[in-house]
């Protein structure tokens, strides 16, 4: 036994784990780990970057904040929450991961996520592809007109943008209007056949929110608030989130 024993500090420093505990209801149960490993045994991210959920939590509990700040693993956990579901103590490891993402300097976070968030902040569409509100409106109207004519059974079908007083506010993933507009149509048909009174919004129509994944809380809030405000301004009663 020549190895130096690990000496636990007698003065408790304020760790990353302590800070996250203050943010969460019941402290996210973050100090209740029984080390059983149920989280890790069913986690698809176990083994990536030589990490797993239990190890991540134990490292945080031991105050290994520098290692926590450095691991790419926080971008490989999808925060799916299965670990909470199977945990006997309902420990909120995904929130620990989310807050660890926020420890990274913004410009050092993964370029793809960062770029998609910044695109969404460019205009009021809040689309991760940067699509302007007018372009979205043009595509929707163009595709609708094509189908109304080519499929006369749907001549009365509507796909309104900014319809005041509609019952449902629908958002839309940018992939369809930008890269495969015909894929918007089946959902419109279902809503039409069901007699649903719905509308898109010219503002906040983008369904994806990469600012949330980026752990940029202010930008996340801006995107979500833009969508919610548009639904409110239009007097819609229900927000249908298609993502």
């Amino acid at each position: 036994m020549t190895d130096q024993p690990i000496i636990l500090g007698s003065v408790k420093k304020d760790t990353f784990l302590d800070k996250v505990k203050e943010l969460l209801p019941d402290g996210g149960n973050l100090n209740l780990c029984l080390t059983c490993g149920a989280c890790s045994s069913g986690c698809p991210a176990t083994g990536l970057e030589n990490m797993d959920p239990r190890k991540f939590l134990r490292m945080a509990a031991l105050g290994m904040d520098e290692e926590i700040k450095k691991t790419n693993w926080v971008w490989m956990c999808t925060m799916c929450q299965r670990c909470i579901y199977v945990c006997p103590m309902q420990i909120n490891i995904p929130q620990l991961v989310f807050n660890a993402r926020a420890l990274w300097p913004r410009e050092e976070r993964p370029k793809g996520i960062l770029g998609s968030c910044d695109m969404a902040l460019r205009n009021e569409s809040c689309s991760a592809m940067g699509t302007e509100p007018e372009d979205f409106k043009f595509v929707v109207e163009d595709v609708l007109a094509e189908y109304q004519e080519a499929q006369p059974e749907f001549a009365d079908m509507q796909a309104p943008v900014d319809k005041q007083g509609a019952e449902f506010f629908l958002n839309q993933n940018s992939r369809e209007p930008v890269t495969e507009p015909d894929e918007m149509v089946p959902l419109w048909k279902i809503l039409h056949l069901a007699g649903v009174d719905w509308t898109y919004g010219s503002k906040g129509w983008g369904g994806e929110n990469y600012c949330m994944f980026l752990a940029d809380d202010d930008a996340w809030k801006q995107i979500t608030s833009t969508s919610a405000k548009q639904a409110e301004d239009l007097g819609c009663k229900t927000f249908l989130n298609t993502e």
Partner: protein
Amino acid sequence: MRKSYGDPIAEDLRFVVKSVVGEENFIDMQPNRSNNFCCGGGGGFLQSGFKDARLEYGRLKDQQIQATKADYCIAGCHNCHAQIHELSEHYGAEYGVVHLWTLICLSLGVLGPKEREYLRDDLKEVNVFHPEME
């Protein structure tokens, strides 16, 4: 939906799927409901640049889908659709991956020729609405 409202509300979607494809054509993967595994497309993973890790993450999901021997997997959102579609090609099983809206309209007989991007050859020509649009 399940994440926000729990397992019971997901049963409504099972009802829809079974109504559309027929009870005998519906196969639940194992494990399922809240015990199911994430596919690895969400949380920003698709845009994170860690492609190899993302495909490795998805290996479990691909094995689950392959074990059902189903011809198609229905994906509930875009992240899942993109990831599972890539898993299908990457691991070589080549099952189809479709949005639910596609199957609903197909079963209603109102799915046109240009709305079939994600149907495979076995369903591409089935019950085409206004085939002249092609």
